[in-house]
């Protein structure tokens, strides 16, 4: 069996607004558009993947929050309705997806060997979080590939960003080892925003783009700093300043997704390709791809 590989890793944020703006048939609410910059960015990411062959999408999601270890989907098929608890007016999505349970369990097992607390989620009534659905839809709207979904262990809340990162580095390594052992080709997604301070009010027309901007300049500056490091191959430095960034901008990097991705990619020194940066209800979102073939 050939050695498995990561064909690309991507920062793929999950504002449900982007799905709402696309008006896919699976989503009940109907919009007049909006957030084109980010949606065009996802289009560019999809184009960059067009000539890549891969077997599975592995996603680490901030919106499946677990406190007793890291959990992995362990049921082969899920079909249900996902309603965003924060923006139910925008996201009520009928999903139908498959899970690569074999690879999911393999990552689980590799992670367990590193000392992480891990658990398979085997309840068929479980509802998939809207972050996973949003990122996967925007990257692969045909839903023709199985996914592996990894929960966000909230060790940052219990300890610190540093402890969270130490755990996510282990999880990223375990993910890479399991992929290589599987012989499969995988796309990895870190499903998170950067700065994450929201507006607490929504325009009457949610897609009114005259109302959209970063919550404050300070967040913008931090986001640009992080993007600069990611796009210049200084990912270890980016991880080093992650604790400050996370604290200063209430960043969604607290979930560990981006640290997991960088570790799985072995902290790329090649440039990440930025496809877009834009704000959604005040939060900062970047779409960035890392192609190991460009190393």
């Amino acid at each position: 069996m050939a050695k498995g590989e990561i064909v690309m890793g991507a920062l793929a944020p999950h504002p449900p607004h982007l799905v709402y703006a696309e008006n896919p048939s699976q989503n009940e609410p109907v919009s007049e558009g909006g957030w084109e910059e980010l949606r065009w960015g996802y289009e560019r990411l999809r184009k960059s993947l067009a000539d890549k062959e891969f077997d599975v999408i592995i996603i680490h999601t901030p919106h499946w929050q677990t406190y007793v270890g890291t959990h992995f989907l362990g049921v082969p098929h899920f079909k249900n309705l996902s309603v965003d608890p924060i923006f139910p007016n925008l996201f009520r999505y009928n999903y139908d997806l498959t899970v690569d349970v074999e690879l999911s369990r393999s990552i689980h097992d590799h992670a367990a060997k590193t000392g992480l607390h891990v658990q398979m989620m085997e309840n068929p009534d479980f509802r998939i979080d809207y972050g996973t659905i949003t990122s996967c839809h925007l990257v692969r709207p045909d839903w023709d590939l199985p996914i592996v979904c990894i929960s966000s262990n909230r060790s940052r809340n219990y300890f610190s960003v540093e402890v969270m990162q130490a755990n996510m580095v282990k999880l990223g390594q375990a993910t890479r080892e399991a992929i290589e052992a599987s012989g499969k080709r995988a796309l990895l997604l870190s499903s998170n925003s950067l700065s994450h301070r929201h507006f607490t009010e929504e325009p009457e027309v949610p897609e009114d783009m005259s109302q959209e901007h970063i919550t404050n300049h300070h967040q913008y500056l931090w986001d640009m700093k992080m993007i600069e490091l990611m796009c210049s191959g200084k990912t270890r430095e980016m991880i080093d300043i992650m604790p400050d960034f996370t604290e200063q901008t209430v960043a969604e990097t607290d979930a560990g997704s981006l640290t997991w991705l960088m570790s799985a990619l072995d902290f790329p020194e090649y440039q990440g390709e930025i496809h877009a940066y834009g704000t959604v209800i005040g939060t900062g979102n970047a779409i960035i791809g890392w192609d190991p073939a460009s190393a």
Partner: protein
Amino acid sequence: MNAAVAGKEASLGEAVADEPTAANSVTLGILVPGLPHPLLCPEKNEGWQRVRDGFATAREQIAASGADLLVVYSTMWPSILGHQFQANPTPEWTHVDDDFHYLGSIPYKFRIDAKFAELAVTKAKARGLHARTVAYHGFPIDTGTVVALKLLNPDNELPATIVSSNIYANRTETTVLGKALRDAVEEQGRTVAAVVVSTLSNRLVTEPMEPADDHIHSLKDDEWNRKFLEYLEKGRLEDLSQLSRQFHDEARVPKVVAFKPFWWWAAFMGQANLYSGTVHAYEPIWGTGSAVVSLEPAGESTGDLEYDEDDPEFYSGDREVLDLHDAPSMGSLPGGNED
């Protein structure tokens, strides 16, 4: 007076009754934890069973209270866009907890008072809050609310309203939210049981554990929990509201900006210490301090508390603190003491 202030006063004038209102429109307060173990597997730990029994006692109290509405404030329902009120009249789903999915699924069908939710939104807006109803099939009602309603109101004897906990809200906003709900209760003339879904200390055991090994995560958490329970038994709800920031620092994992439930609870019930409290259960559930507590309005203050030993709803004038014969326990002094 500037225009903004004038507008605020005019708006409040519509929302708040001019006359003092009945102090006992919220006739009962119930604190319950939101973890699923007492619902799904009480038999696995004696303490979880005692919490389950505490829910049963609280349910009996609700039935005896004359309440015609349950208002549920759940710390496990976070919101960002202001404050959300559940307004689907019959939400129905099969719920699975994110962490404790292996304990099983929880099918539910609840009875929601949508009209009350609409009025609560109106009252919240009148007090300057951003608020809205949510009424969508499949809206994810949180584990805590599901557990509370399944155990406190299993046959939907009473309609319920559920209100979210805004992640950015701090003390003032949360206090105003409680008052807004009280405005709605008073306008409709309802008799309400206020249900707060929250653990005390919230630090979970983060490792796999045998149920028999459950324990409060630390001695410090346990001591703070017991201090809060001591106050609750004395009915000192407003004092606990004032201690919330300290408790947040000492015994809470800071997932959100503040420990809000006691702010809401005190504001909704009347910002007083005039209650009679009963602790029905206090046990660890996966490391957290999980208590079932009830508060009922007390007929008479003990007179040795803080600023509000008098009626906090209607001001009866200056209190002569040296006139000890005014203290309930002192009785009246013999006449002829004018000198």
